[in-house]
Every structure is written in structure tokens, then in C-alpha cells.
């Protein structure tokens, strides 16, 4: 079974390797390249035009994991980018200045078009304005996705996004790709996307079991890989999630915990929900601080940054452009603070979490501004222990092992004390909880 468990990871790695290989060959193949963002990504739309997407955030996080980000960030700071701004942006620009070598060691092609899907993050707009100056002849297509300020998707906002697609984005894609837009082709891809989304929801919902067969944060970033990047809307993506689901089902049947870098998590002690992205520069060490203590994440907001499927939304061929609009608007950081609180509350309740952890990211105001209020609100509402740590996405200068450990020590002490109070209450069986 070990081999089976690793097979989804191997498959994902192969998918990514093929994707980066295709990107490295665009000069020969003539395929056009779209730079775009994960939140509100229009993967199916891009592939309808047979174009290849590049996600600068993914490149940045990969640079962080490969210990390259500090060098890239310093490169960007040398040309005027402030220490205060998003480290993803600086990492991406630094990488570009150093030859744009991607995570697989191959040179990434320059963009033919920048698809500025301006979803849930103001910095995205500034990022691509900067890239446009660095790639001066590149077309830019702005897709302004309205924020869910009223806590719901308004029909006028759907119309606005659709109108932008029809009048601005599609004509630019047709011009750059040389292909006419085919709405039926898009519809077929959206149906495939929905199949993968169903599987992903099942996988995330499996966290309600005890022990949880998944880690919805550290493991979760692998689970969301294909669906949040280049592959949503194709058969390979569905195959990946079928494979992953089979692995998860096996662990549920065998009452096994999730896979960690050191094998299965045994003796699940703490079930946590986490708000905020992970740190990438010390990803393994960071993860280890949790699995060493038997802590598993049963829910995370970060794994909803590229799409929220928990409340029933699925891509649909019924009105493809409206479906894209609703998808974009539903992404986690495009939701109002009360909506975000509700989603976290649902994770905590449905998956029987013992506590909430906030990983506040220095680079990301879209997540971070308001987190302290959300944290206190959930603490008051649910009476659960909450923990708070600070790291950064890809700037290792903002990762302090001792500070994080000290805070986590206190948090785990709280959780332990809480458990010792409840230790006598073993009336809830695993089956009931599941």
C-alpha cells in the first residue's frame, strides 16, 4: 500500500514535469503562454485556446521550497522593491531577472499574455502592472472580479464578469492565440472540472474521520496542486483525484493517519483547523513541529484559495461564462470576513477540531488583515483554544523557529489541558464522530 499511497504524488510530479517540459518547448511548438494567478484561475478557459498557463505564485513557492527565494527577493529589492511588500512578487521578479529558470531547472518562456484575474488580492493588480513594464510588448487582459462585500454573489457582479470576458478577455485571447473561442469546448472542460471537484470535496470531507486520513494543510497543498493549477478541466486531473481518493479511502478503512515525510501519522492527538497560507521556505521543518506532537490539520482556509467547493459550487457547462464568474467570486480571499468565519466554523464543527491556529503571513494582507478579529470571534463563539503564529510565504528572513516553537508550545499546552478536562468523557465513539 505504501507504493499506492505515493502513486498520486508520483503522478502529480509527472504531470507537472510534462507541463514544464511543454513550457520549455513553446518556441518549437508555437504554443502561447499565459501568466495568471491561482485565485480565480481560468484553467479551462486557457486550455480552450490550447494555451499554457504559468502561475507566478507557484514558481515563487517552489523557489521558496528550493531555498532560492531569498536570493531572488534580494535581487528585486536591489532594483527598488521595498522590504515591506509581498515576497511572492519580489521572488517572481528576482527569478525573472536571473533568467526565469523554473522549478524544474528549465527556462520559463516569457508571457504572450498576462491574464490579470484580479480575485481577492489587490497585489495581483500591482504585480502584473509591474510585469507588464518588465515585458513591455505583452498583452494584458484585466478581469476584475468583484468582492463579495454583501456576503453573497450578486447577479450584477456575475454579469459584470461575463461582460468583461465577452468584450475584453476573449477578444484578446483570440488575437494572441489565433484561435476562435469555442464555448462548447469550454463547456466540456467545465464538466470535467466538476468531476475532479466532486472528488476533491470527498477527499477533504474525509477529515471528519478519526483518525483523519488526510492532513488538510500540509498534505492539502499537494492535494490541491492539479486542481488549482494547469490541469483542472482535463482527464489527467480526474485520474489524479481518483487515485488520491483511493488512497484516502484505504486509510479510512484501515484507520490510518495521513502520510507525513516520516511515514504515517500515528497516534493522532490534536485535530486542528488553520487559517492562512503555509510558510514555504521551511515547509518540512514547519510541518514536523506539528506531526511530532501528533497534530493533524482537519481543515484549512488556504486550500480554498483557488476555489471553494464545500458549499456546493461546481463548474458547469450550463452557462460556462457565468460559471467561471461564480467560481472566481467564490474563492476564499474574495469572501467577506463573516463568510470566512462561517467557513472556518464549519471546518471546526464538521471535522471535530480541537483548536484553531492562525498562521499570519507577513506578505499577505489579503489573508492577514482581519485575522485577529476572526480568531477572537471564533474563540468566543465556539469556546475552542486558538493559537497565533507569524511567518512569511517565501522570505526566510521572517521565519523564526524559536518564536514559532514558543507560541506553539503554549498552544499545545492549552490543548493538552483542555483534553485532560475532557479525558473522562469517552462516551463518543469513533463512529458517531465520523
Amino acid at each position, binding site marked *: 500500500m505504501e507504493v499506492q499511497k505515493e502513486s498520486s504524488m508520483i503522478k502529480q510530479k509527472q504531470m507537472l514535469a510534462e507541463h514544464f517540459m511543454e513550457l520549455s518547448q513553446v518556441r518549437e511548438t508555437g504554443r502561447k503562454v499565459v501568466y495568471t494567478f491561482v485565485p480565480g484561475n481560468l484553467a479551462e478557459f486557457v486550455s480552450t485556446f490550447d494555451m499554457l498557463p504559468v502561475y507566478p505564485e507557484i514558481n515563487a513557492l517552489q523557489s521558496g521550497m528550493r531555498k532560492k527565494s531569498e536570493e531572488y527577493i534580494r535581487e528585486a529589492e536591489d*532594483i*527598488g*522593491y*521595498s522590504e*515591506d*511588500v*509581498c515576497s511572492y*512578487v519580489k521572488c517572481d521578479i528576482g527569478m525573472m531577472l536571473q533568467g526565469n529558470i523554473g522549478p524544474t531547472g528549465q527556462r520559463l518562456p516569457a508571457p504572450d499574455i498576462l491574464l*490579470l484575474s*484580479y480575485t481577492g*488580492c*489587490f*497585489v495581483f*493588480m*500591482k*504585480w502584473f*502592472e*509591474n510585469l*507588464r*513594464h518588465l515585458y513591455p510588448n505583452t498583452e494584458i487582459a*484585466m478581469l*476584475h472580479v*468583484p*468582492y463579495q*462585500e454583501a456576503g453573497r454573489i450578486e447577479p*450584477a*457582479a456575475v*454579469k*459584470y464578469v461575463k*461582460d*468583461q470576458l465577452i*468584450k*475584453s478577455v476573449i477578444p484578446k485571447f483570440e488575437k494572441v492565440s489565433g484561435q476562435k473561442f469555442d464555448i462548447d469546448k469550454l463547456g466540456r472542460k467545465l464538466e470535467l472540472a466538476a468531476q475532479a471537484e466532486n472528488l476533491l470535496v470527498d477527499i477533504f470531507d474525509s477529515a471528519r474521520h478519526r483518525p483523519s486520513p488526510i492532513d488538510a494543510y500540509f498534505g492539502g497543498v499537494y492535494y490541491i496542486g492539479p486542481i488549482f493549477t494547469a490541469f483542472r478541466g482535463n482527464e489527467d486531473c480526474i485520474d489524479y483525484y481518483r487515485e488520491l481518493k483511493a488512497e484516502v479511502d484505504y486509510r479510512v478503512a484501515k484507520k490510518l493517519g495521513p502520510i507525513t515525510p516520516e511515514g504515517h501519522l500515528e497516534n493522532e492527538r490534536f485535530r486542528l483547523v488553520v487559517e492562512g497560507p503555509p510558510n514555504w521556505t521551511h515547509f518540512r521543518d514547519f510541518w514536523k513541529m506539528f506531526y511530532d506532537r501528533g497534530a493533524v490539520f482537519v481543515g484549512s482556509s488556504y486550500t480554498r484559495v483557488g476555489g471553494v467547493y464545500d458549499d456546493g459550487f461546481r463548474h458547469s457547462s450550463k452557462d460556462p461564462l457565468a460559471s467561471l464568474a461564480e467560481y472566481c467570486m467564490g474563492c476564499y480571499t474574495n469572501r*467577506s*470576513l*463573516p463568510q470566512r*468565519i462561517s467557513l472556518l466554523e464549519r471546518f471546526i464543527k464538521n471535522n471535530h477540531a480541537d483548536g484553531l491556529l492562525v498562521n*499570519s503571513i*507577513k506578505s499577505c*494582507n*489579503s489573508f*492577514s*488583515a*482581519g*485575522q*485577529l*478579529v476572526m480568531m477572537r*470571534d471564533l474563540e468566543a463563539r465556539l469556546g475552542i483554544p486558538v493559537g497565533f503564529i*507569524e511567518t512569511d510565504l517565501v522570505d526566510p528572513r521572517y521565519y523564526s523557529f524559536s518564536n514559532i516553537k514558543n507560541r506553539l508550545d503554549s498552544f499545545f499546552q492549552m490543548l493538552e489541558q483542555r483534553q485532560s478536562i475532557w479525558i473522562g468523557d469517552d462516551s463518543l465513539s469513533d463512529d458517531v464522530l465520523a
Partner: protein
Amino acid sequence: MGNVTYAQTMSSIEKLFDDLTFEYVRQWKAKLPSRRVIGFLPIYIPREIIHACGMLPVGIFGAGDRIPVVRGDAYFQSYICHLPRTVVELALCGNFGDFDGFLFPSICDVIRNLSGIFKLQFENKLVRYLDFPQNFDPEVGGVFYRRILDDLINDLSSLNGLRPTNNNLNESIAVYNRSRRLLLDLVRLRTEKPHLLSAVDFYKLRRAGNTLSVEDFNALLENLLQFVGQIDAEPEDKIRVVVTGAFCEQPPLGLIKTIENAGCYIVDDDFQLGLTWFSQDIPDYSDDPLGALVESLLELKTFSSAVFEDDRMRGELLAERVLERKADGVIFCAPSFCDPALLDRPILERAMNKHHIKHTSLQYHENLGQFHVIKEQAGAFSDMIKLWE
């Protein structure tokens, strides 16, 4: 305001600036039972609509260094800009007690999420985030923005039961047109003779414009224009600079003073950008005044980090401003952790280099108390231009 002396005018402006309890607002509101007060965050909101609903729009720019932040810091991490801390502090201390609603324009993630905090903390007040269109096609962004304005009118009208007619809207547009014209007259006067009105006084005046009713502000501007034109003073040997990047969190007065005392006349800045968001009049005789407001926004020529650059190259717009104001250089002056300003800076610096415009950059936060480094930097910048240009 009637005929008052220059000293009285400046004194009243000073008083308004210092008053964080918003006494003027309280008095304005008490005059009629239907009056309501709507606070708004930087940069721009359509004040004409609030005015047409019989309400007072009041700019909320934090409290600078004038209050200790006790509770506000518990709402924001250390790496988030300072403005929202003093805004929350003021709110929790009851300083906005006379305010009936708050508008948060879409300028950055912090202001956006601050709207969420207000929604959670002040459930009995109107709280709206205004998502301005980043698409400027009248049939796309225009339609969307029109809907936002319609919704805003509905929300405001629900507070006092008054729904503005087209006449009301046109009158409001006219009075704000007048206000912008007067203010731009003053800007032009300062372009020619910056020594007649110091940057600090001009700044305080504009802060008053974000608290006073537009009628009171216009009267004040008219008086001041008369006075300033009559002042007999000699210019000092200073360079002329455009200061940019301070459109939201405001610099402390000490910083503005320091720049000017270090040898730089500030001939243009974006400290209170919303007051002159439009450089042209908005038609005030239209059968469709909301349409006129929409069209003006779509055709906006103003230099702003919060508006998608599209084909309006921001660096070129800044270079044009420098030329228009006959400035010798640019000081990029942004609050710490301000994504829009700080992410624009490298683009703008490259544009300034292209146009051979000298520039320097500095960062601040609203409660900064030490200006020595800024004095050195601005002084060196001034000396460099005076000696070598």
C-alpha cells in the same frame, strides 16, 4: 463662514484638524433631524451622492500621532500599515458616535478587510465596501458602477427616508464642481508662488475640506484665495518638488514641515487626492446625473495607484505633473507596508529616470516622531539639485 481674517481662517482650520471628537460634525447634524453623517476612507468616494441625500460625507484619515493606540494594535499585526489601527481606536473610543455609516473604497486589501471588521464590530451602522470598476468600458464597467451607485443611494436613503431627485443630484454635482475649481485655483496659485501658503497650511486646509460641509468649505476657499493673493512675501531659495505615494495613510505634519524646511517647496502632492479626483467639471445639468458621475469615473485621468493602469501609463502621468508644476524633482513618500504605493514605486522611478527627473524616496508611518533622517535626506536632495542641475 462670512468675511473673516486670514488668521481666523487658519485658526479655524487648525481647530478642525485637532478635533478628533468631530464637534463640527455633531453641530452640523443637530441642525436637522433628517441629517446623517457618512464616514469614508481614502481615496475617493462620490461625495455628491451623499450630499444629495442630505448627508455629510466626512473623511476618515486615522489620528496620526495624536492618540495612543491601545486597542487598535490588537486588531492588526505589526506588518500591517498604521492607519487602520487609529481608525479602529477612534471607533472603539466612540469618536464616530455621530456617524451613521461608513464607506470603504476599493483601494487595497487592508481597507477592504477593515470594512469586514467594521461589519463585525458595528452591526448597527451602515457599512459598505465600494468596489469601483477596473474595467472602463461604459457598457461593462459603466453598467456595473451604475449599479453600485444605485445600491448606494438605496442604502443611504434607508437611513433618513430621503431619496435624491435628479435636481438634488445636479445641485450637489455643481457645488462639488465649484469646490474642485476653487481648490485647483489654489493649487495653481501655489504652483506659481508656493511661498505664499505653506505646505502644512495647505494640507490642513484640505483636511478641513474632508470634514466641513462643501458649502462651508467653498466659502472658506473663496476667502482664502483673496487673502493669499494679497500676501506680500519673497520666495526662498528652495527647489520645487512633487510628493507622491501618501494618498491614504497621512504623513505627520512634522514630516511635511521637515521636507519644506529642508529646502523643498511641495508644489504638488497626493495627500488628499480624493478632493481633486476629477480635474474637469462633471456635467451638472444632466437628465441623468448618475450617468454623468459614472462617465466621469470611467474617463478618469487622475494619477492613482488604486486604479488599474491599463493604457494610462502612470509614470508618464507623473512626468506630466512634474512638468506642469515646473517641479525640479519627485519625492516618493509612502507609508510603510502600503502595497499600492510601494509596488508602484519601482515603475515610477524607472519612468522618472527615463525623463531625467531627479527623485528620492522615503517611508513613514502616521505616528512617526523622528524627522532627523528625513531632514538629512530631503536636504541632500535639495542641495544636489541646486548644486548640480
